[in-house]
């Protein structure tokens, strides 16, 4: 039986979400419109029961520093710890890895001419922990094993949207040639539009975000018409995290998809926040 890609979960990963969960602010007027996006996803996951999550995200200076900054890095660790990020978030629980599937992905990607970095040790930050806290609130251990794929969104040159979509498609080909029967969830985290730094701090772009949300499922190539720099101009300097969504969409394969859930809310912290769940039609 072949590995089965059961769906794609896309979400913002704003650190402030973690603070809101610690305080129990989910039902307050500021946070409720955002948190309302997640019960449908939790319900879907409870029924779909994925075994493995392949997660595209960006590190925020927990695991990678500027001494060595890979463009694409694939985790191949038996487990992945979170750690203190320096700004007061709780330290989240660890994920169990799936080294055999990680190495299969790595072999397949490099044969496919994606010369990625491999990591047998990798800390994962809020960009992975918060998306799972949102959809599996209160669980003692994560019900999914993790394969993290980190995309550099910190230091230019960033990979182009086109390259990220191609990486995702190569991950899809790798998953298709995996012999296991795992139920696989693909995730892309970050965004949507936001800018934390400089005189344009606080910038968002609802038009661009809507364009991305409208096209990601049916026409992901529409998101590859911009360079990474143009995405930063459109989406804000941290809005380039949409690259993680684009790669994750590629990993779902070029098949018709159904939108199970979609939510878009402004603002969460300094960010236009969104969640989206897609499944094969």
């Amino acid at each position, binding site marked *: 039986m072949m590995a089965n890609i059961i769906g794609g979960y896309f979400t913002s990963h704003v650190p402030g979400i973690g603070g809101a969960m610690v305080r129990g602010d989910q039902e307050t007027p500021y946070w409720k419109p955002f948190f309302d996006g997640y019960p449908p996803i939790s319900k879907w996951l409870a029924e779909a029961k994925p075994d493995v999550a392949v997660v595209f995200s960006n590190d925020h*200076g927990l695991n990678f520093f500027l001494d060595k900054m890979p463009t694409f890095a694939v985790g191949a660790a038996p487990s992945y710890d979170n750690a*203190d*990020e320096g700004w007061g978030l709780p330290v989240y629980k660890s994920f169990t890895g799936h080294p055999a599937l990680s190495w299969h992905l790595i072999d397949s990607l490099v044969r496919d001419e994606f010369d990625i970095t491999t990591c047998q040790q990798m800390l994962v930050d809020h960009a992975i922990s918060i998306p799972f806290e949102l959809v599996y609130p209160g669980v003692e251990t994560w019900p999914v094993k993790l394969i993290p794929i980190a995309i550099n969104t910190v230091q*230019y040159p960033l990979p182009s949207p086109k390259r990220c979509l191609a990486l995702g498609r190569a991950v899809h080909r790798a998953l298709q040639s995996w012999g296991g029967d795992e139920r696989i969830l693909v995730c892309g985290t970050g965004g949507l539009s936001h800018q934390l730094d400089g005189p344009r701090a606080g910038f968002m772009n609802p038009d661009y975000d809507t364009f991305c949300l409208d096209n990601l499922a049916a026409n992901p190539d529409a998101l590859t018409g911009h360079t990474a720099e143009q995405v930063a101009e459109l989406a804000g300097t941290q809005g380039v995290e949409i690259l993680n969504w684009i790669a994750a969409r590629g990993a779902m394969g070029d098949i018709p998809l159904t939108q199970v859930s979609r939510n*878009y809310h*402004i603002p969460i*912290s*300094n960010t236009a926040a969104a969640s989206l769940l897609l499944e094969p039609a």
Partner: protein
Amino acid sequence: MTPESVNADNAIRRAIPLFDGGLATRGYALNAMCFSFNEKANRDAFLADEEGYCARFHLTPEQRKAVADRNVLAMLDAGGNVYYLAKLAGIFGLGVQDLGALQTGMSVDEFKAMLLTWADKIPHQENA
């Protein structure tokens, strides 16, 4: 990729500005210090002896002044990257909205009110 498209991308890098090799080179010492603040012991050491801690990381005079002045725009100009600077801000209990206010010259309340106004620009709401 044409010479024209490379020039256009480089123009965007300078205009925003974006954190590329030039800024990453200029900011290395400052960002290295901020990266160290992932560990509580290092945050405590900075608070106990800011001058000595900055010296350990060989901050440039420009970077040292920006940190001493708590001047975020000057830290960015000195090559600081916001993902790392956020860890320094955390030491002072400052969040991203405080940083936004400091960088735009608004009060924190004005900055938060500005963030809310972006909701008026959502083309259409689709909540499944």
